[in-house]
């Protein structure tokens, strides 16, 4: 039997198990929007831990992480650096979010902010920002899945077919099972990826260099610039501390506020479960360490691989490995893509219906109809992302670069929501608008750059100033209403 058939068989077996887990898990939820989007607020620690963890083990971490380590060296440590405190803000504000969610029935992020500021318009703006940030990410996950299939079958399965197979499975279980499908498949996929990451991360340096230590010894000798933080930039020149530090800062600001993470706060069974998830989150970062070893293992053994993101599949297919191992790798990479893509798909549809359609256009939408609409939108958004992933010439890379800058704009809004009673709807909206515009303008005009600082940082500064000034210049909101949200 040719190797690629065996590889494909292992991969398809993985997809089969994912589908089964995804379909079975949905049977526990009630047939309501709360059940479909927030798992009836009954998720335990294990599932929540893997949902949060699997989301960072995305196609970016699995393919891009080694790619960065391979081509940009120490720059890749930034992925670990922002994770050190990325989820910590949850420890302090998530209990309040969860309680408000229970009291008022929220299942999305914008529902909370729009209620605090009594502004359906704010809900619509947040929905547009979320969707603009989600779509390129989802597209990237699909491309990653198609790419993995293509490489391990030695080109026999084209990218479009690979993406269709993997995301066909995702579509079925997200459509059928909602957040429980996402949760339980992520648990299965997460365990799988961890095992694979450590297996390959230790095995490859051992096989190619005789161990992790000898590998770094040799790289330090041949290319010491790769091991000195903050590593190299995209063009191979030393990266600046300004660029590195501000990238970490913008990621820290935005990380805990990504709408598809944020809405998982509502799914937790209780506050202790939520806090425990935050506590154990850094353990997931440790699983990224071997992923970076894999990238470094390619530096001297496989020079000149283009694009750098192909280093992991290149190493895997270039050395003699049993078909089972290659198949497991393929399945692991698909798991990385799917476990992020499913959460994005589920969140996109929920946000589009709840925060845009219902909040702005049809407040009286009945629950059953709403749930049906969300499920159909899962299919529509999946199709749209698939179109961008395989058919469209239009590149979403620009949106992707902007997405973290946009999401970080939610930070001043969140602080104002929970900690500043004087903040007003006009302040919140104009802050978001100012932040978004400054981020885009700074992105488009390299001449405005200073010390390589991430454009989103300037956006957050403009956002904060505007929020404060406009809030103070407008009438305060009703005290009894605001008191329900802010710390008192």
């Amino acid at each position, binding site marked *: 039997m040719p190797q690629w058939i065996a590889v494909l068989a292992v991969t398809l077996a993985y997809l089969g198990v994912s589908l089964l887990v995804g379909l079975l898990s949905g049977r526990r939820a009630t047939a309501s929007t709360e059940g479909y989007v927030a798992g009836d607020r009954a998720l335990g620690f294990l599932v929540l831990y893997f949902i949060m963890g699997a989301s960072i083990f995305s196609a970016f971490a699995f393919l891009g992480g080694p790619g960065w380590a391979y081509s940009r060296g*120490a720059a890749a*440590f930034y992925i*670990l*650096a*922002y*994770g*050190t*405190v990325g989820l*910590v803000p949850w*420890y*302090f*504000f998530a*209990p*309040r979010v969860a*309680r408000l969610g229970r009291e008022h029935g929220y299942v999305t992020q914008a529902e909370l902010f729009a209620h605090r500021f009594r502004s359906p318009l704010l809900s619509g703006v947040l929905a547009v920002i979320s969707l603009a940030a989600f779509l390129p990410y989802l597209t990237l996950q699909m491309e990653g899945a198609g790419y993995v299939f293509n490489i391990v079958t030695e080109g026999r399965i084209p990218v479009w077919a690979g993406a269709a197979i993997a995301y066909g499975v995702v579509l079925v279980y997200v459509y059928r099972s909602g957040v429980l499908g996402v949760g339980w498949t992520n648990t299965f996929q997460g365990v799988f990826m961890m095992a694979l990451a450590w297996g390959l991360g230790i095995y490859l340096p051992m096989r190619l260099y005789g*161990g*992790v*230590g*000898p590998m*770094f*010894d040799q790289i*330090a000798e041949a290319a*010491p610039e790769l*091991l*000195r*933080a*903050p590593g190299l930039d995209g063009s191979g020149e030393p990266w600046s*501390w*300004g660029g*590195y*530090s501000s990238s*970490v*800062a913008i990621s*820290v600001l935005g990380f805990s506020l990504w709408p598809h993470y944020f809405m998982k706060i509502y799914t937790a069974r*209780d*506050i*202790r479960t939520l*806090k*425990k998830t*935050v*506590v*154990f989150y*850094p*353990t997931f*970062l*440790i699983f990224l*360490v071997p992923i*970076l070893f894999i990238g470094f293992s390619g530096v001297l053994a496989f020079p000149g691989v283009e694009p750098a993101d192909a280093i992991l599949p290149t190493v895997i297919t270039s050395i003699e490995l049993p078909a089972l191992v290659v198949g497991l790798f393929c399945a692991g990479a698909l798991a990385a893509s799917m476990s992020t893509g499913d959460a994005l798909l589920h969140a996109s549809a929920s946000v589009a219906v709840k925060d845009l359609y219902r909040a702005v256009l049809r407040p009286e939408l009945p629950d059953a109809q709403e749930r049906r609409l969300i499920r159909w939108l899962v299919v529509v958004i999946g199709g749209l992302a698939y179109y961008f992933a395989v058919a469209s010439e239009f590149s979403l890379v620009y949106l992707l670069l902007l997405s973290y800058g946009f999401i970080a704009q939610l930070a001043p809004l969140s*602080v104002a929501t*929970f*900690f*500043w*009673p*004087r903040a007003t709807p006009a302040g919140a909206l104009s802050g978001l608008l100012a932040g978004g515009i400054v981020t885009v303008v700074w992105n488009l005009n390299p001449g405005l750059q200073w010390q390589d600082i991430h454009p989103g940082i300037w956006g957050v500064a403009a956002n904060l100033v505007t929020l404060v000034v406009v809030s103070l210049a407008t009438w*305060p909101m009703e*005290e009894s209403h*605001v008191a329900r949200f*802010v*710390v*008192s």
Partner: protein
Amino acid sequence: MRKTPRFFSSRLDPVERRVYRAAVVFFLGVFCAVVWPAYSWFSGAEPRPLGIPLSFFYVIVIILLSFVALLLLFVWEGNRREPDEPGTQGEG
């Protein structure tokens, strides 16, 4: 209406307030540790503890510190109150 921000609930007792304040300062410190200038002091490829370059090893140590600190805070809270006392526990 109170116009100034309040970061800790007035329902927290003085010990809790002190602990949460210390935790916030600690995690701000963790963030500062992984960016310039602090990280630049540990950014070299040498030495290589456990065979891993210092620039890499340092970030791993910070992750572990962050984990231990969160764990201590969590256990401390658990010992203080009945779990999940509604509306109060650990609210910023």
